[in-house]
Structure formats: C-alpha cells, structure tokens
C-alpha cells in the first residue's frame, strides 16, 4: 500500500490546498485528477479483511443532513470510519429557520464542539458555501439544492475512468431532469474539464435556460443522445415534476424518455449505463437495462466510498495542523 501511494502521489499534477470541497465548477482539472488519484489509493482499503486505515484518527466528522438521504450519508459515514475518524450523524428534515434557528446557528454550535469536517446536505443551493465562509471546519458539499453534488460527479468520473481507461474524448449523454439536478451540474463541470463531450437530453421543461453556455450540446431527442455515446447517465425523475406541469405524466415521460431494451439496441456495443440512484424502475430506466450487462450502477456505489475517503482525507490535510505530518495511511 505504501509503495502504491508514493507512486500515485508523485504522479499528482496538483496540490490540494482547499479547506473545503464545495463544487466542481471552481476546481481545476488538476485538482479533480488529484482527487481521483487519491481515491484510487484508497479503493484497496475496502477490499481488505480489516477495512481501516488510521489517516483521520482523532478527527471528528459530522454528517449534517438537512434533507433525507440514505446512500450518500452511509457512504460518507463508512468512508470516515474506514479512515478512523469519529463520525456523528445529524439528520433534520425540519428547516432550521422554522425553529427560529439559522443554519449558521446550528453550525456555530457544532463548531463549539470542535469538529473538524462538516459534510453538509441541504435542499437549498449555496448552504455549504455559506457555512464554509463562516466556519473554521472544513466543509464538504454532499448535495445542495439543484446546485452541485461534487462527490457524486467525482465517483461517476472515477467509474468512467475505471471502465473506459480514460475520460478525455468520450461522449457522455446526461438524460432527464437537468434543471433540478445537482448531479447533472457537477458532472457537466467535471466531464468537460477532463475533456469529455457532454450532451444533455430532456424535454425543454426540464432543461435550464442557457445550459449550452456551460459547454454542452442540447437535444430533446433521446435517440440522438443514445447514438454514438460511450456513457449514458440517467437521472431520477421526481414525481413532483408532474404536479408542477413540467411533464404531463410519468407514463408520458417513460414513453418519450425512458431507456428500455428497444432503445438500447441503438447504443454503442460497449456503452456504460449510469444512474446516481435511486432508480425509478420503469420510468427513466427499464429494469432490464438497470440490471443488464451495461449497467455500472453498483460500481458507482462502491467507488463512492473511495472517492469520499479521498475527499475527507484531502480537506483534512489542507487544514494545515502540525500533526498532519505523516498522517498519510500506512499499513494498519
């Protein structure tokens, strides 16, 4: 393990200096590669019988989730535990303002308890940025409104890299509710920075204005998004979109944008099917495709762990405390 890490560290093209991981938009390609390389080093930890390294021993991580989540929260929790950090989960569906307490009040209370890293999910865009501006602790954005979900995009990039051996030059189509998707935004930034050609596909009601200015191609035709693509990334369609008249019905969505076996016949023979989960089986993705040979949906989940270990490790390292020296994982 030590030797592998030394090699990958030497190959790193950037140094990590950021206290926080808030978005992919403001990261350089070098910083994104650094996270992916660091994740590569950590992947092996989860394959051991004893799945733990002492990298963050003595550090405290708080999962502060203002929105329900099982996968992302569990993934961060396991990542922190495998790095030997202490982790506390705080989940509140109640908007803190409704209690007369602001998000910043909550964070100041946690800071008074001397926590090192705050992993934040919130239904409102920009909350992690707001917290990062006021908190001494590192902040990792675990999804903020429709803004960004950087670790999801990083694990997607990691999975594509793993399966295809490269990202540059690949054609990736992101299909579905782009307007309300933080996953789509983070992936657009990450993929374009690493040289992929990105197409977004969905009905005009689910595409945000001027999205093409982010450097992506736009189509409303699913077949056009499928044809020639190396990766098809499906997004979860929310039932609320129907109520808001953004789609006439889920049935109509399935008929026009659902990916089934028939449409898969037009895809490249080595296409990857990705989905951030949870899948609405029979809406955006037919079960046979979700569970089929092209699907890498469970690899995404597995890789999420390594990517989140890397994220926690890097932001902790950037806090610049003297005891950081020599904290890189050694064989346990």
């Amino acid at each position, binding site marked *: 393990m030590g030797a592998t890490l030394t090699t990958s560290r030497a190959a790193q093209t950037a140094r990590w200096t950021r206290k926080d991981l808030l978005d992919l*938009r403001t990261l350089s390609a070098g910083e994104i590669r650094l996270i992916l390389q660091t994740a590569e080093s950590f992947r092996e930890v989860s394959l051991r019988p004893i799945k733990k390294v002492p990298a963050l021993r003595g550090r405290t991580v708080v999962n502060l989730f203002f929105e329900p989540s099982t996968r992302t929260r569990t993934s961060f929790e396991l990542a922190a535990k495998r790095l030997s950090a202490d982790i506390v989960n705080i989940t509140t569906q109640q908007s803190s303002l409704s209690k007369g307490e602001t*998000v910043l009040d909550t964070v100041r209370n946690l800071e008074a308890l001397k926590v090192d890293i705050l992993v934040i999910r919130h239904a409102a*865009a920009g909350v992690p940025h707001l917290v990062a501006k006021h908190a001494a602790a590192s902040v990792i954005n675990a999804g903020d409104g429709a803004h*960004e979900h950087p670790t999801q995009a990083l694990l997607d990039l990691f999975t594509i890299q793993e399966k295809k051996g490269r990202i540059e030059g690949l054609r990736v189509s992101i299909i579905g509710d782009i307007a309300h998707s933080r996953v789509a935004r983070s992936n657009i930034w990450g993929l374009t920075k690493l040289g992929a050609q990105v197409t977004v596909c969905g009905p005009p009601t689910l595409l945000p*204005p001027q999205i093409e200015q982010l450097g992506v191609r736009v189509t409303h035709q699913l077949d056009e998004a499928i044809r020639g693509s190396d990766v098809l990334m499906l997004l979860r369609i929310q039932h609320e979109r129907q109520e808001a008249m953004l789609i006439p019905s889920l049935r109509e969505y399935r008929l026009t944008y659902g990916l089934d076996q028939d449409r898969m016949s037009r895809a490249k023979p080595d296409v990857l099917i990705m989905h951030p989960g949870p899948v609405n089986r029979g809406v955006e993705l037919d079960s046979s495709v979700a569970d089929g040979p092209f699907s890498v949906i469970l690899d995404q989940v597995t890789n999420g762990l390594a990517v989140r270990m890397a994220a926690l490790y890097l932001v902790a390292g950037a806090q610049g405390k003297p005891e950081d020296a020599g904290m890189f994982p050694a064989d346990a």
Partner: protein
Amino acid sequence: MAKLLIRGGHLIDPANGRDGRFDLLLERGKIADVQPAIPANGARVLDAANQLVVPGFVDLHTHLRQPGREDKETIESGCLAALRGGFTAVCAMPNTTPPTDHRGAVDFIHREAQRLGLAAVHPIGAITKDRQGKELTDFGELFGAGCIALSDDGHPVADAWLMRRALEYAKVFGRPLIQHAEEPRLAAGGVVHEGLVSTTLGLRGIPSEAESVLVSRDIALAELTGGWIHFAHLSCAQSVELIRQAKRRGARVTCEVTPHHLALTHEAVEAFNADAKVNPPLRTEPDRQALLEGLQDGTIDCIATDHAPHTEWEKAADFDSAPFGTSGLETALAVCVETLVAPGRLSWSRLIEKLSAAPAKLAGLAAGTLSVGAEANVTFIDPSARWTVDPQRFASKGKHSPFAGCTLTGAVVRTLYRGVG
C-alpha cells in the same frame, strides 16, 4: 429661527433651471432668497465652497417597516437613513403589519413622523384590503388622510378585473396606483433572474417576462380606463420599451428605477451573495443598458430606492430563505454618481432632477425645489469625495448592501430638513 446663509456653493435646482454659483438664504425653515451673491447681514454663514447645494431628495419608494417589524427599521431609523442619503422626504410603502389600508394606519405614520420631525414621511396606502388582492380599500378615506398614492407593493395586483376597477375608481382622486409588476405564476418560487446565473447556481429563476407581461396588461388597462398607472422598480428591457411606446401613444403611465438595477446585473449574486437578492431580481447587462437609456430619454420618470431593510440574521440565511431587498437610502446618490454621472450618462442637473423634482411631481408634493418660499430642505454634496461602503455604519437598521466594500464617488455631507440639520 435665525437666518442661515449658504454661501459659495454650486447650486443645482432643476425645477427653477438653476445650475451655477448661487447663495441661498434660509429663514424660519423656508428658503428666503436665492441670488448669485447675498450679503450676510447678521445671518449665520455656512460655507459650501466646492460643494453642490441641491434640493432635498424625495424617495418615492421606501419601506419603513413600522408598524410591525421594528427590528428591521423604524420610522425614526428610516428617517435618519434618509437624511444620511440626502433625502428629506420618503414615501412609505404600505406593506407593514398591519398594512396601511385604513385611516388609523395613515394617521399613525403621520403622527410618528411629526413627533420625530426628522424628515417628511408621506404614506402610500394599499390598493386592496390587507394587501390580499381581493377587495379594494376605501380610496377616498386613504387619500383624504393624506396618502400620495396607493400600492400593494411587495405583491402585484394580479387580478386584471380588480386592477381595472381600481384604475377607474382612482381617477376620482387624480393620484396614481403604483404597481409591483410581477405575474405571480411566472415568478413563483423564483429567487434570481432566470438566465445563466440561475442555471449555474441551481437557483429558481424569475423570467423578465414575469414583469413585462404585467406591465403590458396594465398599460392596456390604463388605456382602457384613462387611469394613472405608475410602475415601481423597473428591471428589464421589455418593460422599458413597452412604457416608451405607451407614452408615445399618450397613455397615463409613469415609472421608476432603482439605483441597484441601474448599477448591477445578476452576476452580483455569484457565490450566493444574498445581499444582492432583490425583487425584481437584478437582470442582464442588456437589461441594465435599456434602463440607462430609458432614464436618459425620459421613458423612466425618476429614481426611487426601494429601500427594503432587513435584519442581519435574516439576510445571513441561505439564498432561498433570505428575504428580498436591500438597504438603499444611504448609497443611492453615490451609486447614481458612479453609474450615471461619471460615465456621462446624465448631467448632475438631470440626476438631481430624477432624485428630487421628478419624484416630488409624481407624488404631488411641493418639494424637490429650492424656490423662494419653499421649505428649506437642502442637501449638500461633495461631488469628488471617495468613500467605501460599510453597511455597519448605516443609520438604517438594514445593515446590508450589495455595494458593501465598494469605493464610490460622491458623498452627501449635510442634509437640512426645514432649515435644520
């Protein structure tokens, strides 16, 4: 009260066509004389060398928050902020708790303003009861109590039928209805302009059409009824063009623009800066240019601050939860100097007109002039002073501004209200 002679200043009084070196003599709270040179004759002398001496500004659009949200602003703190910004009269929007929709509420504002004696406060009454957009208020009672206009500001009057009736009935009183033009269904849930910034930040957008659709409708209703419609805080190019055409046709349409819409675009909300969260939202550069052109060619009648103070903790919330509005009275002049005078868009004289005589005329007030016999409401400006905006030093309780940290040119150095200050 003793005589006060303001000597050596550059006097700008657009209502009387004066723009040059004049002395100004004040006596008993009134303007007693204006001459190129006035001998002191025992009057106290105030040296105004290198300063502009202009009429006290009139703000057609101010939120004073009292009664109801005295933690955000009071009539007192709002008047103090007005004076700091060179305003000697503010028109108070009715979205208080309770709202200014009945005589008692109007009387309260008048009584409190008179007790303080800091600046003139002119209430604007609500168009509909409790600002619910359902039933008209008693217009005659509100105008009789001294309201200068009616508005449901904060909300639009969304119901076309009700707006038609309101415009017709208001003709009895010769005063305008001020519309907050925002089609509620098109704007629903939005927090920023719908465009590249909303897309990038994942925030819900408000399209320009939310405004222009209602501007278009209300121009049509004004033309149908012959009523007077005034549009608050214009934000987009389409609205300016609609109003330009309507004025050419002779419709009874007037409008205002805020300093922040003249100075900033939606890019100011980058990095989720809630200090730049205002309603209507800051829009694009072409919209901003259209507002500047509209102001230059007279399509836009005046500048109004839409001073909308909030507590610091409210503005420090996340972008979605933070309330709309900015503290505007104390930065208005300098922002206008930077945006309009410095680049040669407006002369000093026209800027002063847009801040004083023009809004006074819309409000039906004998204010915004330095005519002999008028109230001695005088603002002194150092046109070349450079200062850095620090909201913590605002007199307003709304200690937030999208201009925080900006260094601006042009400072109000003194404001006299009825000869005092």
